[in-house]
């Protein structure tokens, strides 16, 4: 049966289980939700700011929407991508502390300089190496490895989010929004021209129609 208390407890347990030991993922997921919410508010702020002219709104509204879409997509892909690379480097022990190195050397997992690679053996630093799968991982190195991995993931995630939010997003959104502004201004100019043409000869004939008629009437007399 549906029970709010049960659901709430389930939600708390879910957060604890999924983010309790994974702060990097939490930052990516909540970051995405945060950007969605703040983008909505920013679009609203531009639409209802009467100090911004219509021409500038035509640029700023698409800029804001482009900002939101690009930000969310690039934030998720770039931040989680860079975070994944950070986590992979640490998990495969490509990036490690001296203490982790000693642990791995003791187990014969490190390919020393000049040593020949044994065919089929997976060494520390290889793509398929996973330090957490070693038999003595929990008993000997987990307490040192986990905090290092969390730190590396948070730093990688932060780097990804800076790159995506402060470099990729502004560059892409500006390109998109300026193209949109040009398009919108052109259509505005066309509307104005049509209106001007109509007001030149109210209720009778437009400038275009007049020019067409004039050319038909007089073109035969043109002497070239």
């Amino acid at each position: 049966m549906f029970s709010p208390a049960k659901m709430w407890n389930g939600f708390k347990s879910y957060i604890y289980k999924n983010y309790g030991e994974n702060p990097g993922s939490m930052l990516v997921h909540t970051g995405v939700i945060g950007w969605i919410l703040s983008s909505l508010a920013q679009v609203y702020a531009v639409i209802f700011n009467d100090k911004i002219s219509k021409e500038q709104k035509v640029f700023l509204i698409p800029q804001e929407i482009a900002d939101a879409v690009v930000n969310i997509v690039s934030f998720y892909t770039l931040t989680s991508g860079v975070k994944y690379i950070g986590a992979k480097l640490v998990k495969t022990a490509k990036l490690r502390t001296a203490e982790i190195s000693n642990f791995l050397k003791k187990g014969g997992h490190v390919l020393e300089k000049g040593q020949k690679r044994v065919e089929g053996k997976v060494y520390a630093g290889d793509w398929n190496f996973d330090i957490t799968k070693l038999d003595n991982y929990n008993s000997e190195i987990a307490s040192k490895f986990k905090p290092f991995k969390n730190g590396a993931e948070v730093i990688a995630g932060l780097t990804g989010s800076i790159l995506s939010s402060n470099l990729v997003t502004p560059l892409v959104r500006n390109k998109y929004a300026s193209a949109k502004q040009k398009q919108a201004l052109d259509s505005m100019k066309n509307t104005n021209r049509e209106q001007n043409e109509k007001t030149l000869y109210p209720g009778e004939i437009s400038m275009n129609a007049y020019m067409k008629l004039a050319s038909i009437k007089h073109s035969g007399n043109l002497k070239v």
Partner: protein
Amino acid sequence: MAAVKLNIAKNFYNRLPSMQVSKDKVIDKIVYIGKKWSSPHQRAILGVTAIVMQPYIDWKNKSVDDKTRKVAVARTCAKIIAGTLTGVALRAGFIKGIAAMSKTASEIPANTKPFIKNLKQCLTPKNLDPSNKDALEQYRNAMGTILSLVAMVFTNFLIDAPLTKFLTNNFIRMQKKGENK
């Protein structure tokens, strides 16, 4: 074909030299960041780097006219300041609040009244491992951040948007004053 590409990437990765962080100070800093830094820090760092990078990018955007470019710079600055201030404050506030309401049994004095005890534990997860202090701290960070995002549905409209508008208009006024000098 995809499998061949993946193998090339794996081989390339395998041939990259391993890196060892040996300085204790650096390792301590990395561990500290993993344990202590959370969404308010992330938001603050994003804000600081944004104010350095984004207005410059907008200013160099030559594909729009001068007037629009100036408004875009003013708005970008305003948006970053308003978003960072409210974002950091809300996240930090909520994480603190959640921490106060997700105490473990050992963190509550024995003579605490039952109502207060329940209040202090109303957000404590049922599947808590009391020996894992770091996981509890990360849970508090995550729960605080998630609930602050729910609050942001309202504050974005009530604080962020009007503050952005107010700051944008002020920055535009400052630009005009500077031009008239």
